[in-house]
C-alpha cells in the first residue's frame, strides 16, 4: 500500500474567460469560430504535492490564488484540465455548511437531508442524531421549520451535522467564517479534536489564527501555483510579508504620564469590531484601545481620553476626546484589562498616509500618552459620490457634497 493520503501530480486547470456560463442554442448553432487561447486563464498550473496520512495542511493565498479550485478538484466537483490526483481514503469535503438545507423542512428533516448529501448513511445519522442536536444547541426547535430559525441557529445546526462526519480525509473551505465567536470557538475545538485523531485535513481559511492552531504544515498559493510549502509558521510569516496590510501597529515605546492607566494597544476595526486592514475614505471606523489599570491614583469620571490623527507631515487633522461630547466614564471600573472604543463615522480623509496618537489625562495631568502608535494608509478609491479626487495639497478631506443651480 502507498504511504500517501493525497498525491497530486502536474495538476492544472484552465477556465474560459467570459463564456464560462452556459451559451444559448443560437450561439452554439451559428458560432463556428474557435475560442482563442487568450480567452483562457489558468486557475491552477503544474501543482505537485504529496500529503501524508494524518497531516493537517493549511492552504493560504489571496483571493483568486486557486485555493478553492484546488479543493473543488480534490472534492470531485470539478475536474482538472491535465494532471492527476490520487487519493487513499474516504474523502468528505465541506465547502459550505448546510448544503441542500430547505427552509420549509424542520431541523430534524434537514439534518437527515444534509447528512445524506454529505455522504452519511441514514443509520449513521440516526445513531448520531442526539449528539448532533446537542452540539448544535438548537434544542426544542429541532422540529420547527428552519425558515423560523435565526441565521446563527441555522449555521450551528449545519456545522453540527458536518462535525460528525468521520472521513479519513477532510477538506474544509472557509466555513468557520460564520457563526458567533462562541460557536466558532466550539467548532475550532471540534476540529482540533478531528485533526488530533490522526485524520488528514486540508483547510483553507483567511483566519490565520485558526490555521495556525489546526495545521502543522502549510501551502501558499499564488496565481495558481505553489509559492511555498513548509512548516505552518513559516508559511504564515511569508504570507503576511507578502500581503502587507495598509495598517501598521507599532509597539508603544515612548510614553508620557504617571502610568496609573496604560494603553496596551490600538487597532482599527469596522462597526462590528472586526479588525480591518484596508482603510477607505467613506468607512465608518472604530478605534479600540486596550488598556489596563495599574493603580487607583486617578478618578475615572474625570478622565479625558483623546484620539488624534496627523497626516504624513505631522500636521494635526483631528482631535477628539470624550469631554467634547460630554461622555464621561463612570467610576465603577476595577483593576484589570478593558477597552475604550472611539467610533468615527465617515472617516473622510483624502488618500495618503496618516498616524494616530492618543492621550489619557486627568485635568491637566498626563496619565498616558504616545505618538504614532498606529499608521495607516487610506487607499485610492472614490468615496461617496466622487468621480475623481482633488489633490491632497488643496483638499485634505473628502466629504459628501452636492452641486446644483436654482
Amino acid at each position, binding site marked *: *500500500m502507498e504511504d500517501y493520503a493525497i498525491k497530486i501530480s502536474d495538476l492544472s486547470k484552465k*477556465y474560459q474567460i467570459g463564456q*464560462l*456560463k*452556459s*451559451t*444559448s*442554442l*443560437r450561439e*452554439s448553432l451559428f458560432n463556428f469560430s474557435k475560442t482563442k487561447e487568450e480567452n483562457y486563464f489558468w486557475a491552477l498550473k503544474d501543482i505537485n504535492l504529496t500529503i501524508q496520512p494524518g497531516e493537517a495542511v493549511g492552504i493560504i493565498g489571496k483571493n483568486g490564488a486557486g485555493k478553492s479550485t484546488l479543493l*473543488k*478538484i*480534490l*472534492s*470531485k*466537483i*470539478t*475536474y*482538472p*484540465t*491535465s*494532471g*492527476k*490526483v*490520487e*487519493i*487513499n*481514503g*474516504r*474523502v468528505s*469535503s465541506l*465547502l*459550505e455548511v448546510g*448544503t*441542500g438545507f*430547505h427552509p*420549509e*423542512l424542520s431541523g430534524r*428533516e434537514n439534518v*437527515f*437531508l444534509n447528512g*445524506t*448529501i*454529505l*455522504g452519511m*448513511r*441514514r443509520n449513521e445519522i440516526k445513531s448520531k442524531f442526539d449528539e448532533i442536536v446537542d452540539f448544535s444547541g438548537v434544542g426544542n426547535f429541532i422540529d420547527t421549520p428552519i425558515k423560523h430559525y435565526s441565521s446563527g441557529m441555522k449555521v450551528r445546526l449545519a456545522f453540527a451535522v458536518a462535525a460528525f462526519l468521520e472521513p*479519513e480525509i477532510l477538506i474544509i473551505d472557509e466555513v468557520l467564517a460564520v457563526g458567533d465567536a462562541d460557536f466558532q470557538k466550539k467548532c475550532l475545538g471540534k476540529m482540533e479534536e478531528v485533526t488530533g485523531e490522526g485524520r488528514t485535513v486540508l483547510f483553507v481559511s483567511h483566519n490565520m489564527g485558526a490555521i495556525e492552531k489546526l495545521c502543522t504544515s502549510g501551502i501558499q498559493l499564488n496565481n495558481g501555483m505553489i509559492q511555498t510549502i513548509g512548516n505552518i509558521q513559516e508559511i504564515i510569516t511569508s504570507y503576511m510579508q507578502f500581503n502587507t496590510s495598509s495598517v501598521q501597529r507599532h509597539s508603544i515605546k515612548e510614553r508620557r504620564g504617571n502610568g496609573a492607566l496604560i494603553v496596551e494597544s490600538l487597532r482599527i476595526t469596522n462597526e462590528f469590531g472586526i479588525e480591518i486592514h484596508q482603510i477607505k475614505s467613506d468607512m465608518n471606523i472604530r478605534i479600540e484601545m486596550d488598556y489596563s489599570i495599574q493603580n487607583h491614583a486617578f478618578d475615572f469620571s474625570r478622565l479625558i481620553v483623546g484620539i488624534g490623527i496627523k497626516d504624513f507631515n505631522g500636521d494635526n487633522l483631528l482631535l477628539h476626546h470624550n469631554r467634547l461630547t460630554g461622555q464621561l466614564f463612570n467610576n465603577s471600573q476595577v483593576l484589570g484589562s478593558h477597552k475604550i472604543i472611539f467610533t468615527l463615522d465617515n472617516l473622510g480623509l483624502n488618500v495618503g498616509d496618516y498616524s494616530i496618537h492618543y492621550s489619557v489625562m486627568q485635568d491637566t495631568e498626563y496619565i498616558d500618552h504616545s505618538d504614532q502608535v498606529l499608521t495607516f494608509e487610506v487607499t485610492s478609491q472614490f468615496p461617496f459620490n466622487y468621480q475623481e479626487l482633488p489633490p491632497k495639497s488643496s483638499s485634505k478631506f473628502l466629504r459628501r457634497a452636492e452641486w446644483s443651480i436654482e
Partner: protein
Amino acid sequence: MSKTTITSASSRKLNLKELFDYRDLFWVLAYRDLRVRYAQTFLGLLWAILQPLSTLLIFTLIFGRAIKVDTGNIPYPLFALCGMSAWSYFAFVMNQSGTSIIGAQEMIKKIYFPRLVIPLSKSLVAFVDFGIALAMTIVLLFYYNIPITPSIFIFPVFVLLNILFALGVGIWLSSLTIRYRDFQHIVPFLVQLGLYASPIAYPAALIPEKYKVLYYLNPMSGIVEGFRWAILNTPPPGVYSLISFGLVFIIFFSGLWYFKKMERTMADLI
C-alpha cells in the same frame, strides 16, 4: 481503504455501484420534494387529486359529451383516465427532471455525488401522482363494473416502459438545459403538444393509416395503448407500437450517455 484517482480523462462508464451507495440520497431528495410541494397549502395532498380530476372533467365534457369520441364499450371517463395516468407520470418527470440540475446548482457547486441521482429522484416523486391516478382508475373500474382481466399481468411492462421513457427524456433535458437554457422554454410546450399528440383523450384508432408511422414516433402512443390493453382489456397495441418501444430504449440509453458526457463539466457550466 478506498482509492480514488482523478484525472482529466472523462469516464463514460455508468458506475452502478456508486449509484447504489447513494441510494439514501434518492429517498431523501424525493422526500424533500414531496414535503415541500404542498407545504403551506390549505388543501395539501388533496391538490394531487383535484388536478387530474378537473382535467378528467374537462375531457369528459368536451371529448366524451360534446364531440362524442368513440371509445367502444369503455365508458369515456375511464378511457381517458387510463391514458391520463400514464401521461401525468411522464409529464411530471419530464417537467421536474428537465430543470432539476439547474435547480440543484447550489448543491452541485459545493459537493460531489453522482449527479444522476437528481433527475432519477424525480421519477420517485412522480409515483405519488401516478398512484393517485391509478387509485382513481380502480374506483372507476368498480363504478362501471368492469372486470380486471389476465391482461393486467402485462401492466408492469408498460409501467417500466413509461418510467424509462420519462427518465430518458428527463435526463436528456436536464443535461441539455445546463448548456442551452432554451430547453427550459421547450418543456411546457412539449407537455402541451404531447397531451394531444398521444391517444389520451381519443383512441389511436382514429389516426389514419398513412400517418400511423409518424404517430407512433411518439413513444407515449404505444405506452398509452399498452396501459389500456392491460387495464381495460382493449385490443393490444398494433405492430406500429414497436416503433414506440424501440425509441424508448434509444432515448433512455442515449440520454444516459449524454448525461455522463456532461456530468464532469456541470459544476463549471451552471
